[in-house]
């Protein structure tokens, strides 16, 4: 087992995609933690300078200023905190709901599996974005509600993934022998099934983070995200729209930030997929 992980690690270092991805994500985390020190104008998250609005990028404001005269770069750095918070919490909730449901349905088959299929069918019958928008709009714009909307609409994908993986593992000899030896179901699921589908879950988590950040950005763009003055990236892009084409930097900077971060998670997910389990390569690529 140990050599397996060591092998994976050395593979990981050699896989450029995974490496670049993790560097980007590390950068994002550092930006979020050290935002107050990195930002040239940390007060600009709240502070306005109306006479200094819509300044083009220069030596003082590297990414220019926004409609209130605040420094765009500083706001983007602080925005990283919101992005990470939303993605991490939403994905944790999603995993916490989706994995047990998928495990149980996959393990027992019969009516639990039917029930799962039918319920997830309901959620999958219209685009996740639409359902998330509807929920976020109902609950009102706030970070908590964005997280809630994303988790409530994303778990069925997870349940299905775990379900499918569980089904394929369940008929393997070592599982059947564990059951034959009289191990209780929870023990089989936790100690035998889960470790064998863990790699699929890890890969999916990375890509899921990217998807979640994109969907959260859409909510922000539509005005359903964190309320002002929170420097939420999607909201910043929406704000910038009426100032195009003059204030090009205003839309470009937060868009690039989103792109870079999602790219990081996708690259990492891709790399992990190659390293951990070539078998799941196709199954996972179908989910996008």
């Amino acid at each position, binding site marked *: 087992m140990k050599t397996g992980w060591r092998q994976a690690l050395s593979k990981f270092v050699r896989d450029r*995609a995974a490496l670049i991805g993790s560097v980007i994500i590390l950068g994002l985390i550092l930006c979020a933690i050290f935002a107050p020190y990195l930002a040239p104008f940390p007060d600009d998250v709240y502070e306005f300078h109306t006479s200094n609005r819509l300044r083009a990028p220069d030596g003082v404001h590297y990414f220019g200023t926004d409609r209130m005269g605040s420094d765009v770069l500083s706001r983007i750095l602080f925005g990283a905190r919101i992005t990470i918070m939303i993605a991490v919490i939403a994905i944790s909730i999603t995993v916490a709901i989706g994995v047990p449901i998928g495990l149980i349905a996959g393990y027992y088959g019969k009516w639990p599996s039917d029930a799962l299929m*039918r319920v997830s069918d309901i959620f999958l019958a219209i685009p996740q974005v639409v359902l998330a*928008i509807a929920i976020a*709009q109902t609950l009102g714009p706030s970070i908590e509600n964005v997280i809630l909307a994303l988790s409530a609409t994303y778990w069925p994908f997870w349940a299905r993934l775990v379900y499918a993986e569980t089904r394929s593992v369940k008929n393997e000899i070592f599982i059947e022998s564990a059951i034959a030896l009289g191990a209780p179901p929870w023990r089989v699921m936790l100690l035998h099934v889960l470790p064998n589908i863990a790699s699929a879950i890890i890969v999916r988590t990375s890509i899921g983070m990217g998807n979640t950040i994109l969907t959260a950005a859409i909510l922000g763009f539509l005005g359903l995200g964190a309320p002002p003055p929170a420097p939420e990236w999607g909201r910043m892009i929406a704000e910038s729209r009426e100032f195009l084409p003059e204030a090009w930097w205003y839309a470009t900077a937060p868009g690039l930030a989103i792109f870079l971060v999602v790219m990081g998670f996708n690259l990492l997910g891709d790399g992990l997929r190659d390293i951990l389990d070539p078998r799941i390569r196709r199954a996972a690529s179908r989910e996008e």
Partner: protein
Amino acid sequence: MRRLEIIVSRLAWFVPTIVGLLIIIFTISHIIPTDPVRVLAGDNATQEQLDALRKEYGYDKPLPIQFINYLKDVATGNLGISIFTKRPISETMWHRLPATLELTFAAVFLSVLFGIPLGVLSALKRNSLFDHVLRVITVSGLAVASFWLAMELQFLFSMNLAVAPLNGRISGFGPDPITGFFVIDSLLIWDMESLRSALSHMILPAITLALPAAATIVRFTRAGVLEVINSNFVLYERAMGIPWPLIVWKYVLRNALISTVTQIGLIFGVFLSGAVVVETVFDWPGIGAYAVNSILQSDYKAIMGFTIWTGAIFLIVNLITDIAHTLIDPRSSQ
């Protein structure tokens, strides 16, 4: 015959699935403190007006009754009246559907046109520079926020270079609707001005919509082709000295096509979620933009109407995919 079973069970489950979805939407749309009657009555309504309207539209009844009445209406094909536009929702959906379909078909066309050849090429030239560059592009294509891409395209091509219209579907009124598809209609009446206008309006939203789908197609076409190339019978045929181009033509492409067709249903899902955002940014008068507007305006009957339609579209597309799969790949029907 297993295929047939799947198709029948899909059909059988359609109604309960949609009803389940409607319950969810109905519930969440009644948590909000918006009073549809006030919206319907307009800015300056009096209490008297409100009461009259509440009665007229049945909003004075308890919620479960309202829901059941709604289902009864839906069963007779009546989706109700939008509280915001005060128009029948079915009529609006019919009216807007061609716009969404036209854009979606254009995007499917673009993504297949570029996605399949690129996917095949990158598989055949595995680990070449081309393959690596394409991998970076496809990963980027899936990482870019569509609304932002749309805005940047507008910024570049509409505002600065002025080579494409900023948004909308056509300038002014389109050709008189025959099919509702502007490209087809303008060809039918041979109106080149309309055709040019329709195509130029379509290009930016179609590209925005096609990019993530093309990236997805490239990726699984590549994976599909690789699988075939490494399969035993291809290795065997190579060993038999059959020319490589013939093998590619005969087996590889055919299999790539099959894997694409089976994924169309999935891609269609990508398109529908994409359309919701892209239509909003490009002001494209389709059902996606209608859904977003309805949600933002808490026009819940319109949202429920959209839900039914999208559910139906998903079902139909999946059925077509199943049938197409059966036709192309005889093995699957056994």
